[in-house]
Each structure stands twice: as structure tokens, then as C-alpha cells.
């Protein structure tokens, strides 16, 4: 008997004026999964994230997270329930140093309740917990890196900071919006173990990606969107063999490459 999926998206539709960004999209995510969402540009991937996490009001449909209906709730309430997200266009708090960026999520009611990612019990000094989290994420503790202004960090570090921001909430699930984009091959290579560790810690992940090869290394299930509709779902191999998917990516070199190396 399958246990209740941690996230269920039911018939979600979103129309922007005359444009249908999402059309009766339904899927669910089991606890502990890493679901990859892929699809050509404009297929509605970021809109899905925005609808699930409450940043956009859906035209119709429901979203159930851990058995509770979160459709139409405010974004901070959804984050408070344990569903965190990263932003595709990241903007850390530029005027603050990196570790101070984490003070804000550690200030939230959820962090106060849960003690904030490995903070253990009572929260303690937010600055210290912030540095601890950054060390988990891969910032070298004894260097000056955590103390640099967030605006001066290289992209790889900024992406990790974005992830750290989610982790500070001790979430049950994180939706990563194009977290691999803009990173070099070596930076991605160092992010992958981090993602795997998150999964081992029991966090469910949804990853929206364009970089298919890297995504397929971590994801155990993949869903393909096109024009706001789900056109395929399954394991990475199943999905890439699907005719409709190939059609959607027609001529894309990346798909050819993945296919040839599979």
C-alpha cells in the first residue's frame, strides 16, 4: 500500500489574460523522491512552482501538501508548513554579508520552532547557526568567504546561499528552480553530492532544470511539461524514450547527446 504522497497537485490551471500557462496539470510526489521537471522554454515550469508555493493565485485546481490543502494560501504560510523554494533569478540580500543573509530565515516562526537546520533544540545565536549552515552547504568555515558581502560572491556560492536559505527553515520539501543554471561543470559536480545528501537527510526535492544530463544523475523520477501540460512522466529512461518528448525537444542537441550517451 503506497503511503500518502507528500505533495499532490490536482488539476491546476493558470491563465494570464488570454494565455493558458498551465492546463489542468496533475501530478504527485512521494516522500523522499527527487522529481525533475523539464520542458522547453515557456512550458510553464516556473509558473508551477509559483502556483504551488503561493506566489501566484491559481485560476483553478488544488494543491495538497502533507495532507493539508494549501491552495491559495499566502507564501509565507506555505513556507512555514515546510515547503521551501529557491528563486530562478536569485537575489540575495546584497547589502548584508553572506552569513547575515541567513539571519532572516532563522528569524521565522518555523525556524524558532524547529531550531533551524541542525541548530539542535533551542536556536541560540543566529549568527553562529548561520555560519554552521553555511559550512554544511560548502562554504569554508575558517575563510573569509562567509563574511563577504553577498553581492560579491561568485554564482556558485550564491546558489548555495539560496539553498542555505531554504535549509535554515528545516523544510520537508524544497523546490529548486533551475539551481544548476549558470554554473560551470565543476561547480555542478560539487553541487550534486550536496543534493544527494539532502535526499539522505529525508528532504523531498523537486528540481526544475534545463541541464538534463546533470539532472538525470540525481532525479529518480522525471516529468515533462509542454505548453502547460504534462506530456510524459516516469523514470529518466522512460521519459527520454517517449516520442512526444522527443517531438517537444525536436532537434535539441542536448537530447541527442543524452540519448547517445544513455
Amino acid at each position, binding site marked *: 500500500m503506497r503511503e500518502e504522497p507528500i505533495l499532490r497537485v490536482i488539476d491546476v490551471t493558470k491563465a494570464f489574460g488570454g494565455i493558458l500557462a498551465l492546463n489542468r496539470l496533475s501530478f504527485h510526489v512521494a516522500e523522499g523522491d527527487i522529481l525533475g521537471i523539464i520542458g522547453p522554454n515557456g512550458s510553464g515550469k516556473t509558473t508551477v512552482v*509559483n502556483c504551488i508555493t503561493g*506566489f*501566484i*493565485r491559481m485560476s483553478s485546481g488544488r494543491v495538497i501538501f502533507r495532507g493539508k490543502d494549501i491552495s491559495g494560501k499566502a507564501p509565507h504560510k506555505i513556507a512555514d508548513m515546510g515547503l521551501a523554494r529557491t528563486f530562478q533569478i536569485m537575489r540575495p540580500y546584497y547589502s548584508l554579508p553572506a552569513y547575515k543573509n541567513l539571519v532572516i530565515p532563522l528569524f521565522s516562526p518555523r525556524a524558532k520552532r524547529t531550531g533551524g537546520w541542525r541548530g539542535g533544540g533551542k536556536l541560540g545565536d543566529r549568527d553562529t547557526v548561520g555560519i554552521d549552515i553555511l559550512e554544511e552547504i560548502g562554504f569554508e568555515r575558517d575563510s573569509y568567504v562567509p563574511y563577504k558581502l553577498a553581492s560579491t560572491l561568485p554564482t556558485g556560492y550564491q546558489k548555495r546561499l539560496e539553498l542555505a536559505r531554504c535549509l535554515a527553515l528545516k523544510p520537508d520539501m524544497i523546490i529548486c528552480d533551475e539551481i544548476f543554471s549558470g554554473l560551470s561543470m565543476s561547480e555542478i559536480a560539487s553541487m550534486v553530492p550536496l543534493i544527494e545528501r539532502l535526499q539522505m537527510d529525508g528532504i523531498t526535492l523537486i528540481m526544475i532544470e534545463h541541464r538534463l544530463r546533470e539532472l538525470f544523475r540525481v532525479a529518480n523520477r522525471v516529468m515533462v511539461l509542454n505548453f502547460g501540460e504534462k506530456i510524459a512522466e516516469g523514470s529518466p529512461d522512460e521519459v527520454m524514450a517517449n516520442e512526444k518528448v522527443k517531438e517537444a525537444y525536436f532537434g535539441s542537441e542536448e537530447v541527442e547527446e543524452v540519448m547517445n550517451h544513455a
Partner: protein
Amino acid sequence: MDILIYGVINSTALALMALGFALVYGTSRIPNFAHGALYVVTGFIVWSLLRGAGLNYLLSIIIAMVITGIIGALMYQFILIRVRGMAISEIIASYAIGIAILESLRWWGFKGMSNTLPVFWEGSITIGGVPVDFHRILVVVIGFAVVAFLWAFTHYTRLGLALRGMAQDERAALMLGIDSDVMALVAMAFGAMLAGLAAVLLLPLGNIVVEKGYSVLIQAIAVCIVGGLGSWMGAVLASFLIGFAQILATVYIGSQFQMVVALLAIILTLILRPSGLFGRQKELEERV
């Protein structure tokens, strides 16, 4: 019955006051907080030309409106253009200009003297048992005519279509070769002239007082917020809603409540439906 008639008159007056503001905001997204100042300035110019220089009334009106339009254009070209895009700076800049104009007029001694403009047409008729003077009827007629004209203008003339295009999507309009700065300039000049038009129509019904500048500003903003910033249909509808609400308040409570009604309308709209009746800025509720 008289509620109906006065309601219509008041609503048209509000619509006239708000149209200039709505036009500028809809096209260039600049909230022109000097709108009230332009209103009073036009009245002042007409008064000076009429009583001071002894010019013909119609001529004074035309000259005054043109001058106001020029003031609006200059305001945009030399000041607002530099803060274009920074919403708060735009507000501060246009508000400061508005205050500078209004308070200068106040200092010039405009407050105590009973400066009045003559009505266009003396006399009154009775409609359904209610005496209505000709000037007020003229206000309603011209008001409807202006709305109709604006609608036709923005749907059938090249310039009007360009303005509408900019209002809908600035980037797309830019790609089609519409110069956003020129359009904003045109919109500002037109908006200023509409403020002037409202002034010449409505000021004869009372006297020219600097305070009117502030109340016109508040009422224009109220209409635009209730109707939805950026929607003209909404502005017209909102002016009727607020207009009738004000008349009802006047009849049942007292005539001083007009400002309260406007303020309440704004607060209620922001609580219940921030993007207004027909607001196209649904982002307020969606906040992507």
C-alpha cells in the same frame, strides 16, 4: 429624483477630474501628483486673462489650457524624465512640484479674495421637478463628450493607438517603434490639459481656492484607485460609484462628508480588492 440628477452631475465632475490623472498613469505609469496644482493654475490663468487683461472668455480658456498643457510637458521633459521608472522618486518629484505651484499661488494672495469665474450660460431649467442650471447640464454633456472623444481617440487615431499600446505593454510598444518618452510627454501634456478642462468647467460653480487643488488631487486618486489604476472604464465606473456615494452622504448626513467618502473608498478598495474594479494590475493580488 434630485439624488439621481445631482448624482450624475457630481459623478461627471469626478470623472473629469480623474481623467487627466488616469491618462498619465495609464500611459506612462507616472502618478502625477501635481494634477491638482495644474487644475488650480488653469483657473488662475483664466481668471488673470479674463479679469486682469480683459480678454474674451473663450479665448482665455483656450490660452489657459494650452499654457497648462505646456507646463505639463515642461514638467515632464525637465524633471520627471530624469526620475522615470523609480516610482517613489516620481511621486516625490511630482508632489513637490505640485506643492510648489499651489503654495506659490497661495502666497500670491489667492486664498482670501473671492476669485470667481463666470458660468458659461446663465439660467436654469427644471428636470423632473428639480431645478438645474444650464452650466451644470453643460458639464454633464461635455463630460460625456470628453469620455466618448477619448475613447474614439485611443481606438481610431494613430497617436491614440500608440498611447494605448504603451499603456498595455511598454516593451512591445518600444519594439514597434513607439518612442516611450515622446508618448509620455504627449500623455502628460494631454493630462494637464484635461486637468485644465476640468478646471474651466467646474471652477465657475464655486470660487478659485488653493484648497481645491488638494481636494481635486485626492478625489482623482480615489477614483483611479477604486476603478483600477490603468483602466479608463474603471475610472468612469468608479467616478459614478463615488459620485453617487457622495451625494447620498450629502443628503442623508451632511455636505461636508465628501472628503470622508473619498478616503473611505480608497481604504475599502485597498482592503477588499487592491487592484480596483477593473485593474489590469492583477499583480497586486498575485505578486509574482
